[in-house]
């Protein structure tokens, strides 16, 4: 079979299935359809993860390799944050202190794993060079995280009351993120050149700002379509004004329900 046809069936069809599954899961109220959506997402993701073996000749397979490379640290961070959050002041279903400790360790391991990809031998390499999608992912993650951390600090300052602990923690996270970026600009890793990292950082900025503008335009267009449609709908038919007799009846009914009645009754 032709290579492009194989790539279509083993990469693009699973990708489409994953997106459709996610939409079914998010937008439907029926539990059956939602469950089917979850299954579709699972099947699609599995097929994408298998792309380096099913379609090794296709450039798209490096995306499957990239997804496989980040599943581990992402899952560690996600489960770690869950454990840490729900072992705090939760009235119902509070997790134990050992799960809190395991949560902290999981988050640290996840972050160290990601760092090992930049500064150690864990860099995703496929087939013989650093995976280009990892470069995009890593620079975008650092860029967006610094923006979100600064925004979150300002948000807790403006909206929060007595949120000093959160501000301190977010400041520590921000300093760590900025330090990582600066180290990346200054020093070469075993597989990542400092100049290349700086270049990818700039391109990540272009990607993120392009995405923001594109999303904003699409939402504006959506709002325009809905507003235009709603403005074209005919006015709902109005009932004629009530007659004097109808008003009298209504007044009697209201009076019967609001008046306490006379003592003679």
């Amino acid at each position, binding site marked *: 079979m032709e290579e492009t046809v194989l790539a279509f069936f083993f990469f693009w069809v699973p990708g489409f299935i994953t997106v459709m599954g996610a939409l079914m899961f998010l937008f439907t109220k029926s539990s059956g359809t939602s469950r089917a959506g979850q299954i579709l997402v699972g099947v699609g993701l599995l097929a994408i993860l298998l792309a380096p073996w099913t379609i090794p000749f296709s*450039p798209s397979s490096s995306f499957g390799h990239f997804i496989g490379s980040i599943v581990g640290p992402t899952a560690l961070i996600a489960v770690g944050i869950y454990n840490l959050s729900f072992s705090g002041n939760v009235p119902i279903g509070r997790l134990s202190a050992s799960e809190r400790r395991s949560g902290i360790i999981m988050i640290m391991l996840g972050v160290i794993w990601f760092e090992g990809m930049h500064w150690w031998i864990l860099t995703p390499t496929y087939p013989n060079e650093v995976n280009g999608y990892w470069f995009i992912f890593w620079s975008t993650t650092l860029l967006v995280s610094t923006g979100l951390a600064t925004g979150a600090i300002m948000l807790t300052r403006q909206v929060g009351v007595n949120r000093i602990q959160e501000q301190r923690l977010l400041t520590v996270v921000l300093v760590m993120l900025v330090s990582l970026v600066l180290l990346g*600009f200054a020093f070469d890793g075993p597989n990542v050149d400092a100049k290349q990292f700086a270049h990818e950082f700039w391109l990540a900025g272009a990607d993120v700002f392009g995405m923001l503008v594109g999303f904003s335009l699409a939402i504006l267009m959506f709002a325009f379509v809905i507003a235009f449609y709603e403005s074209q709908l005919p006015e709902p038919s109005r009932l004629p004004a009530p007659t004097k007799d109808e008003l009298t009846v209504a007044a009697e009914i209201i009076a019967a329900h609001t008046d306490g009645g006379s003592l003679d009754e």
Partner: protein
Amino acid sequence: MSDKEPRASLLVLGASFLFFPLVLCGLALALYGHVTNGAIIRFANSLLTSYTIASFLLLFSLFVYGDKRKRPIAPLVGMLGAALVGVMVSFMFLSQGDLLMEANGSIRAQALSNIIRFSTTLIAVFISALLVGGISFASLMNSPTKQHIFSEEE
């Protein structure tokens, strides 16, 4: 929210999200002169791809809107038209020689590459939100219990 000026507070909040990304991009430019090569092309490709994909996703969400409005056809047609404009503009620009083409051999390869790069960026944004939002949420959940504001007078 601050008592001073709500609009000024919102502006400061919005600027804070952009401050460090812009400063770090500026620093990269100052350290290495030629890091901006290809940035305009990446910006344009990202804009067109995200507009087109977001339009199709919003078109899908119109089916939910239709449930409450006797399934009207007009908004579906309107949004489909908006999404198709994105597809046509993307292919029109990609077919103009090197205007938006990167290291890809054909228009189809460039379009597919744009979609995969969009997915990668989206995953990175989600993981950033997970990391920063998750740490903030965990900190909030682990902060000491506040005293009740309206405690009973003894």
